[in-house]
């Protein structure tokens, strides 16, 4: 295979992969919007430390009932060994989804 054919085939492979990537999940605009919503949802985040305990308290928009539900989920996910940042992202997304459902 000569150099020109090789480059043409490489470009074809990359184009096929790019097309497949573009068809995955939400669009770039939707992802940007979601990211912005995620950031805005967090009202405050602070670290509480004492001699025997250390935890991060995150305040975000939502009803008290929703926050209670999330606290229960947090305990469950901690037992499963989930990483904190992943938990936080997932939980805030769930909160946003719940809010959207409540509003619609």
């Amino acid at each position: 295979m000569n150099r020109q054919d090789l480059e043409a085939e490489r470009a074809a492979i990359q184009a096929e992969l790019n097309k497949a990537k573009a068809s995955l999940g939400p669009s770039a605009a939707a992802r940007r919007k979601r990211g912005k919503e995620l950031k805005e949802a967090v009202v405050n985040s602070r670290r509480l430390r004492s001699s025997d305990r250390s935890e991060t308290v995150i305040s975000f928009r939502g009803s008290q009932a929703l926050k209670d539900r999330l606290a229960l989920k947090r305990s469950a996910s901690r037992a499963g060994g989930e990483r904190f940042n992943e938990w936080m992202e997932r939980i805030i997304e769930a909160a946003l989804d719940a809010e959207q459902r409540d509003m619609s």
Partner: protein
Amino acid sequence: MRAICLASGKGGTSKSSLTAALAAWLARDSAKLAADKRVKVAIADLNFDQATLTDWWGKRGRPLFPHLLQLTNFSNDLAALRKTNWHYCLIDTPPTDLDVIETAILEADATLIPVRPSDLDISACRAVVDLCRRRRKPFAFILCQVDTRPAFRKINDAAIERLAEMGHVLSTTFPMNKAYLSAVADPALRGKTGHEIDKTLEPTIAAIWREVEKIGATDDARAPVAAKRRAK
């Protein structure tokens, strides 16, 4: 598609060399075959600081196969490979960035943990083992840079026994062989892997791949080597 992550939690364990060797082995005849007969092999270099695998791929002349994945969003990149019916993706990881390693473990179907027969290597790989267990992902160890001379047999056996306490150990080892090092002295060999320089190593890399492909595929593949030995 089958995605295999190579991770060890420590540098210098042959992650990149083994990734390159396996990728080259899988893609060995691709250039000669018609497009529909090729084994579509991709490699992903998540070791962004050193980019050893990327460097190897460049020195190899940027072949079509293995195809070096252009990383934008790793999860999506891998999903695109799955969607377009690639056969294999081998993922090289950084030595110590556990966040990146964890992402690779999560996205891959199985993890291969290269370990040298050294006390420090065995201790260092525990972090990766923990990640695999926590994420319930299949994994196996491979003993690398193995000196096969009789004087080292006791050390190699002891390393295998210790690893077998944590999980499955491949019965084939990745040997310390001058073919894997000869590119240092000969620029013409840069970008080639050991079995391409010394054909007698082909059966070894073939045997390693046969075992790697089975990681997590059956319960038998996960059974510790020590248990199998005891059963004999």
